[in-house]
């Protein structure tokens, strides 16, 4: 009973299906849940992002479109139906395939990117035991699966047969592969300390000790390296040189429209959610309440933890991190390609390596 997969398998046992049918049914149910999470996340996050950007630029953002006549707040948070309307618009738009593109690959690419995000979700816990399938190498699985997207990006850029797309794809590949190193090194730090790749065990460790971000100065630094690297990994401003509207039109998405473009969009926001949930689980105590920050309170105080509140804490921390990513986006101008590589190879990787060394010493001493 440690994952949704297990509990579904047990509760559906009365149907007396053979194993293949049962597994297919469970996969279908789980997949539907993931897809719903992704879709709702994209709807909410896009609205949120537009509002945040508007407020940071002294505007109001969408204010007019409502759902069934309800527009939301009068003063600032109106227009709640805007992203839903946009989604419907996207799905009904003409789907354009350029004449000289590689049609098979061009159709395939968005689905690869989408599958990358989709598969990653299987290992992402939303709370204790609320995870589709509970891997004991969950962290490794997530890091591995989130790299699948880059294949789709290169395919998309190549098959579009457009120089903007190809430039964007090459930049994206270079960027994502580079930034995976600091991400891996920062996560490795946590694995060294907690001694497990299993996300539940990592949270367990934080419950009995303290949140990783406050474990030592090195893990503190590692969190920031990780967080800035995941901003780059998800291709968001200030690291959005693969899309770079002002130079590359829309990078590898240039030739896409309608439903396939919507898939890119969906995956982008899904990736955002995934990396933020992972950050909150690995560094910020996951489904633990903030009382576990330093663990000095008596046992009776910990009523703030629990299965439902755990879900709340994970999403709360993830939303805060997503907000910070948006905050980045509407604050900083885009980096140049050389600056981007400079930050990764000359700053983050040396610091992450040094971190790794020092945190090993720290563990040896304390």
């Amino acid at each position, binding site marked *: 009973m440690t994952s949704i997969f297990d509990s579904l398998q047990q509760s559906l046992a009365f149907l007396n299906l053979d194993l293949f049918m049962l597994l297919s049914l469970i996969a279908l149910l789980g997949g539907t849940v993931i897809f719903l999470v992704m879709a709702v996340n994209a709807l909410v996050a896009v609205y949120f992002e537009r509002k*945040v950007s508007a*407020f*940071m*630029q*002294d*505007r*109001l953002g969408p*204010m007019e479109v409502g759902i069934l006549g309800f527009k939301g707040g009068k003063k*600032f948070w109106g227009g709640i139906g805007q992203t839903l309307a946009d989604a419907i618009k996207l799905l009904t738009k003409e789907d354009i395939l350029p004449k000289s593109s590689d049609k098979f690959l061009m159709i395939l690419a968005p689905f690869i990117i989408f599958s990358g995000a989709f598969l990653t979700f299987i290992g992402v816990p939303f709370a204790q035991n609320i995870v589709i399938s509970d891997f004991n190498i969950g962290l490794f699985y997530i890091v591995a699966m989130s790299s699948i997207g880059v294949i789709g990006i290169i395919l998309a850029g190549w098959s579009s047969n457009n120089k903007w797309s190809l430039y964007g794809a090459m930049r994206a590949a270079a960027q994502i592969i580079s930034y995976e190193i600091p991400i891996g090194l920062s996560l490795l730090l946590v694995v060294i300390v907690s001694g497990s790749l299993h996300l539940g065990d990592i949270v367990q460790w934080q419950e009995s000790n303290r949140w990783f971000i406050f474990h030592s100065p090195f893990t503190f630094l590692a969190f920031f390296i990780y967080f800035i690297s995941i901003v780059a990994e998800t291709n968001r401003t200030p690291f959005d040189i693969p899309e770079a509207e002002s130079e590359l039109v829309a990078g590898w998405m240039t030739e896409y429209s309608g439903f396939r473009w919507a898939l890119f969009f969906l995956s982008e926001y899904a990736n955002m959610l995934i990396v933020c949930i992972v950050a909150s689980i690995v560094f910020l105590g996951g489904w633990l309440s903030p009382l576990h920050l330093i663990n000095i309170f008596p046992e009776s105080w910990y009523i703030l933890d629990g299965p439902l509140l755990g879900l709340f804490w994970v999403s709360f921390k993830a939303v805060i991190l997503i907000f910070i990513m948006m*905050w*980045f986006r*509407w*604050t*900083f101008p885009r980096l140049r390609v050389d600056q981007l590589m400079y930050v990764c190879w*000359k*700053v983050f990787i040396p610091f992450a390596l040094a971190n790794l060394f020092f945190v090993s010493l720290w563990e040896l001493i304390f």
Partner: protein
Amino acid sequence: MSEYLNNIVYGVKSFLTGMKLTMDHFRNKKELVATLQYPHEKWPIPERNIGFNHSEYNLIRSRLHVDIDDCIACMQCERACPVDCIKIDSIKPPKGSEIDCGMTSNDTQKKMIVSRFTIDMSECMYCNLCVFPCPEDCIYMVGGPNAEKHEIDYEFSQYKRDGMIFDFADTTDEAIRDAGGEKWLDQRDATLTKHNDGVQLKGEVKSVKPEPTAAPIKTGAPISTTKPAAQTTESSGELEIKSFNGISDKMCRGIAKKAFMAAKRAGKDAVAILADVAQALSEAGKMSDEIQSILDRLSVSPSKAVAPAVEAGGDIKVESVPDTPEAVEMKEFDIKDLNAIEDKMVRGTAKKAFIAAKRSGEDKVEAVRKTLADAGKLDAAAEDLLNSFSGASVELSAPVEVATLSESAEEAAVEPKGDLPLFEISDLNGIDDKMTRGMAKKIFMVGKRAGKTRTEVIADLRLGLTEAGKLDDATDAILNKLKSEN
């Protein structure tokens, strides 16, 4: 190494500075958001200093307003208006009637009912001259010092241009009728009907479509005569500026029309006008065979007895092509024909009946006759008028004089054969494939601009499409059809 570390410190510092800046904006959105949700929120009108004391001269962007309860219909403002944008109609109740027109706020007894008070704000020039003569102070500019009197409205946004005409009169039809304004109401309704009819036309004047004149192709006796007849009616009637539209070259057409207008103003007759036009054209060195033939045609017709030719042309058309609606329309009983009736009242009644009959699809002549008879207004003149129409419909079936018929047919034969009118671009819409259609339309437009004839354009189309490898069976069929359509 120190530069490297300095860079990192500087980077973190500027990072935090930037984050703080945007966060300040995010948190203080209540004060900082600059957007005005326009239809829901509005700025107040700015006070504008125009060199006068505001209390005396309030011509800031505004609009005229009338407190209609205070208006005594003295017409002072209408008279004062230099652009005539104020229109007032009033009705004086007959003597001895009990109708009370009300009191103004200055305690003046009103003696009239204001049945109409419209101000066309699209014509108003904000001179304020209408405001001063008003004895009751009931017309004034809104805004400025008068802002308390009436809410400020600075947008003037209307969905239609008609919306700029503001009607202030609030008298009901019953009140007007009680005060003896029956006639006024009828007049107003007639105007409204006329207006509505005009709106329904949507600016399109029903005209006889120029029928393709490929007379010699078909040799069936009745039909071959009718179409050229239509052509002659068009060109042989009164010499009009439209007659020159047959000239295909723009420049020549312009010159011809100019000469025509000059000659017409000088009061010359048709033959002299044509001579003038021919002279002007040859002076400009634009005289060509085509134009010569058009001019010849024009000059032949007026010299002959025009009237019978026209009649014959019209009649033949009706007789032999009964399913052509335009042809029937020519002798149709039209609402304009009723303008011949002299008495205003009778005319109004007749027109009303006409419209009603038109809507219900009855026989208009009979309907009008009946209505007039019922109202006791059917005098000899009206009777004659109506008879002429009912007679016309009888005449239609009468045999046509053979002489005029053959005459018009002869004229038709003179028509240059190559002068086929070009088909419409919309005829090409039958082509299914987008690409092919686009290409065909392009070729068509090129041909049209170059003034090519139908046959030439079709040949061009065929050639161009074959070159592009787009000429499939369906397209070929469409081209063939276009070629043989006339």
